């Protein structure tokens, strides 16, 4: 327990003191939320009650993706290339506790991010509507999927490649993940692709869970469950601890 706690503290501190990481985990989601809520520059879904009813769930999706996938893959990739993972393998911490500490850190950072976005959303006139249980369940499933993708990259790619790939996916998902505009406003083929990727399923779920209410569509559930199970499995089987 003591090694796990020491590691979890360290993981959280490292996540919250990395400038570039804070930009994608907090900075960009906050800017997008404030900017688009005030300017209404992009289309909203026809069912939206207000700009924030769509943008708060959307930017929360962005935040969860940033922590689960972008910052965890970059950090873990750097640790792998610096031999940190290798060195920690020969300490009493061990790999299971290391993974547990990483998951703890991701969840703690996400809670902070979601709290910041919720407060800003409320100030911008958001009225939460729906079901917090569904919200938590969707967030956890999606985190598992995103973290799986992140670790898949961290365990197989060079750290320089990971930085490019993770930020690239982040940017693409920003546009086709139902985050800043509904996927229904995308061209047909891209909309279909978006429904297969994990971001749009989460934004759709959160939109119903805390934006406008109503049930989460079946495709989103299927999408989240498959990614939540498949990506970590794939990561676990392909992960190489040394570069």
């Amino acid at each position: 327990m003591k090694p796990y706690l020491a590691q979890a503290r360290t993981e959280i501190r490292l996540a919250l003191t990395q400038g570039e990481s804070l930009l994608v985990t907090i900075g960009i989601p906050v800017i997008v939320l404030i900017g688009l809520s005030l300017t209404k520059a992009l289309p909203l879904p026809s069912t939206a009650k207000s700009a924030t009813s769509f943008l708060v769930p959307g930017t929360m999706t962005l935040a969860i993706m940033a922590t689960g996938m972008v910052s965890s893959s970059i950090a873990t990739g750097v640790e792998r290339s610096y031999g940190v993972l290798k060195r920690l393998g020969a300490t009493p911490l061990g790999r299971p506790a290391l993974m547990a500490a990483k998951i703890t850190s991701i969840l703690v950072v996400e809670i902070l991010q979601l709290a910041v976005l919720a407060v800003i959303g409320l100030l911008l006139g958001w009225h939460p509507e729906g079901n917090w249980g569904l919200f938590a369940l969707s967030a956890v499933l999606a985190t598992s999927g995103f973290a799986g993708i992140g670790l898949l990259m961290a365990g197989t790619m060079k750290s320089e490649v990971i930085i490019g790939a993770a930020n690239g996916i982040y940017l693409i998902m920003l546009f086709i993940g139902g985050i800043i505009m509904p996927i229904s406003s995308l061209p047909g083929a891209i909309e279909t692709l978006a429904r297969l990727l994990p971001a749009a399923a989460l934004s759709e779920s959160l939109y119903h869970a805390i934006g406008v209410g109503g049930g989460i569509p079946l495709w989103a559930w299927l999408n989240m469950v498959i990614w939540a199970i498949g990506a970590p499995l794939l990561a676990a089987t392909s992960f190489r601890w040394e570069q």
Partner: protein
Amino acid sequence: MPTIEVNDLYIAYGEKIAVAGISFKADFGEVLTLLGPNGAGKTSTVEAIEGYRKPSRGEIRVLGLNPHKELSKLAPSIGVMLQNGGVYPRMTPLQALRLFHGYYKKPLDIDYLIELTNLKGTLKTPYRRLSGGEKQRLSLALAIIGRPKVVFLDEPTAGIDPEGRLAVREVIRSLKSQGVCVLLTTHDLEEAERLSDRIIILDNGKIVAEGTPEQLMTASSGDFIRFSAPSNLDLSELAAELNTAVTEERAGEYVVSTKATPEGVAKLTSFLASKNIAVGDIRAAKSSLEDVFFALTGKKMDSEVVGEQSDRHRRGRRR
């Protein structure tokens, strides 16, 4: 039960055989050094003993455990200094020491370790901005923070600064006095000679010699006297006078195969005086590990490192 026991260890990476069937043991309170040029199989061997690699064949026991399968049981009792890295690049030495302090049941005092490895001036500098020597010293401190029973130091003096060299010596002496088993790898002959109780010389994945530094050096060509004088002296007369072999190694550089006793030196100088030969200098030279290594493998320790691990700073040879 030996502390470390290696039986017929083979390690292959695909087609390439890194370690080709070696066996050895090490005990508590012993400093065992694996010596050899880069590519000899030292790191592969050590990493297999640390549990990082699965042997292709053969058996390893550390404190009675199989390190690859039972690493989690073994980890609290071992300390590891990797050849490179091992610390978060953004972490300062103080943060790293505190983190590792949290991993162990009865860790050493952090201030004591800072003092021992002379890290005081670096405590607030992120790891990636430390000098090579500072990184090595931190890595050494982290290897011993958990009061290990077995310590693995992989090239602890490669690229190290003079302070680090002293710290390594100090730490090894103190570990040995506490009965810790230390497994060291190096291609640095001087360090091997100075620090080891026993040395295993590896070449191409095989053990080519094994023994205490003294045994290894006595077993080879023995001691000799070197002197410089005008080239092309008549060696046969000198050899007959001294009753031993004399060779001209290079023009004007002579080697007399006799122990550098006062008597031997006196004989040589009186011969040179009688012939009125101008002498540059006379040195009594002990056979070094370098000579031993050369005699065993026909290679110089530093000869084949070009291109391999070229990022590592290499220290000059001592002679």
